[in-house]
């Protein structure tokens, strides 16, 4: 058995340390604050209280074990009486079948009407997922609104572009790559004016921007879930969870040397949805 003073000494010290830390905390705050010191001192203030309380409860308070009985449930008779009380009150409701049905219809109607404001939360999806801001002849710009010319990129270069007037647009972001001229056509991929190819930058898996281009393997890489798209195979997925190629933007070099879109993407960009193929 501990002696009385030794039982209380640690508790008193804990509360003392806590008080000192709280005073220090106030001073730190008054002097302009410092996050690390604030957290550490708050921890000591609270920790001192914690130790004091636990020791007080543990050393100085009545220790059981105490026993208490527990009643499990109300007992059959009382439960039956409760059901009876409810049913005797409900009798009138049960007899008035017609009124009850009218009430049910009225409640259903007001419930249905109350749901309509949910529609205000968002615009109708309609065909908005099926097209982007790219239009025939739209010139390409960088995020800083600089027009992209045929000599903007070296071979092996990689840049994010948008349609002119829509820099930063989420659904129109495109990765523009410059390959060795002729190589894309030779691989059977279709037209690549002066080596340029453009793909939607939105991953067809969960919609992250395709952030990385690896020139060595000529692949685009999504940093979210590690889908890999082979540029030379028209950006077909070769690894990871993506199931569809990145849609390709048809492009050409216009008479003034600017890169322009021939048309919008031929299919919806980004992640899949129920009616995507309709």
């Amino acid at each position: 058995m501990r002696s009385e003073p030794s039982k209380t000494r640690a508790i008193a010290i804990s509360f003392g340390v806590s008080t000192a830390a709280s005073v220090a905390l106030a001073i730190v705050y008054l002097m302009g604050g410092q996050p690390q010191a604030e957290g550490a001192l708050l921890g000591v203030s609270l920790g001192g209280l914690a130790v004091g309380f636990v020791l007080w409860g543990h050393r100085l308070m009545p220790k059981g074990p105490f026993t208490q009985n527990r009643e499990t449930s109300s007992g059959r008779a009382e439960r039956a009486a409760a059901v009876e009380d409810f049913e005797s009150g409900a009798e009138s409701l049960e007899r008035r079948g017609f009124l009850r049905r009218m009430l049910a219809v009225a409640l259903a109607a007001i419930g249905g009407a109350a749901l309509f404001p949910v529609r205000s939360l968002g615009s109708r999806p309609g065909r908005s997922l099926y097209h982007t801001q790219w239009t025939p002849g739209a010139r390409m710009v960088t995020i800083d609104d600089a027009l992209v010319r045929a000599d903007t990129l070296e071979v092996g270069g990689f840049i994010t572009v948008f349609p002119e007037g829509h820099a930063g647009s989420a659904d129109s972001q495109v990765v523009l790559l410059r390959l060795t001229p002729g190589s894309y056509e030779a691989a059977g991929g279709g037209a690549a004016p002066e080596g340029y190819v453009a793909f939607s930058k939105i991953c067809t898996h969960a919609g992250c921007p395709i952030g990385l281009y690896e020139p060595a393997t000529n692949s685009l890489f999504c940093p979210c879930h590690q889908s890999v798209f082979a540029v030379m195979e028209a950006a077909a997925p070769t690894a990871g969870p993506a199931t569809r190629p990145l849609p390709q933007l048809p492009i050409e070099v216009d008479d003034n040397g600017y890169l322009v879109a021939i048309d919008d993407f031929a299919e919806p960009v980004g992640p899949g949805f129920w009616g995507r193929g309709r």
Partner: protein
Amino acid sequence: MIKRAYDWVDERVGASSFTRDALNKVFPDHWSFMLGEIALYCFVILVLTGTFLAFFFDGTTAETVYEGSYAPMHGQTMSAAYASTLEISFDVRAGLVMRQIHHWASLVFVASIVAHLCRIFFTGAFRKPREINWIVGVTLLGLAMFNGFTGYSLPDDILSGTGLRIAYSIALSIPLVGTWIAFLVFGGEFPAEDIIGRLLVVHIMIVPALIAGLIGVHLAIVWKQKHTQFPEAGRTDTNVVGSHLWPTYALKSTGLFFGVFAVIAVMGGLFQINPVWLYGPFEAHQVTSPAQPDWFLGWTEGALRLFPAWEIRAFGFEIPNPFYPAVLLPGVTFLLLYAWPFLEARFTGDRGVHHLLDRPRDRPFRTALGSATLAFYVVLFLAASNDVIAKWLTIPVNNLTWAFRVLVLLIPAVSFFFVRRFMTALQTSGVDRWTEVPLRAVIGRPD
């Protein structure tokens, strides 16, 4: 003084019988019964720090030019949400420590709920008459995870924007109604401007109110039913043995509150978390690498990374790939959690009232099943870092993804087998502590 105040109240509401019941209420003493209390105290810390943050946070996407004291971002255009997060971090005195305590508390909140759920599961505390409280508890887990995600999304930095981008894509993947759900929740096509303001309302009003209400229900039911207890001499299904609420248990529990708060305060002060100023404001065409959610969503992120490139397409309709790992898997997970007390009662035929707990070894099958389930989610959680681990091991990430696809099935199967063996060995060898079980009894031939 106390007597006079109490007389004044009691003459008006007549609470003495309840008060005496309450003060003399008996609580069993066992460390594992504190896990739920830790969760409760985390919620208190979250409300306290969250209220402080709400006074300064501007939950809109209105464009602002940053003019605060964080020099690297000076003059940059960003949303009001991001700018006010920087303000809280750099210009509100004690703001950063509050923000970091809030974030750490949310992580510990979900962790303690999960630990509490494991304790309830492995000791059979969900059995009759506690099925209702199990359902309330599982709902609280879901709400806590959901609110963790909404909070993570509020600062409108690149990382949280990526999280929202993925959440939008997951909503889109729901068959038939996915586009409508995504457009109604976000207010239109991503990135719709309404979402941050909506998340704020959900994060600081709707979900906290639901959590607070359900905690009330949870505690009221515990109060009415009284705690379970581990079997021991003198403990039966009709009594409860332990300390009185007043004063022993009250003092210890208050101590626990301060202890939890102390640990989280130190974490909030010393361990940096979610330094959004290093990530930068959200831009639709930018992404950080690596990008991971808070720990408690790691399993869905891992499932998204591991699920093979499969999807169903027919007649121009499709059920896209993210649906299976990110809608179906969480749906089935929570459905099974909700249903477990009823499934077990059906399998075992045991529909009796239980106030005495099982030790995990008493139920080798249940314990093994729980371990296998945990192992499954832990592997998924690790897979959410496949890019980081691959870099660290200097192996191609694709190889690691394939390894994880095998491990996510193999490790649960192996752990089921060994845990069941181990529990049976514990039972038959008659030792008390699990460390004393002879290894031979676990890996040798079964009896």
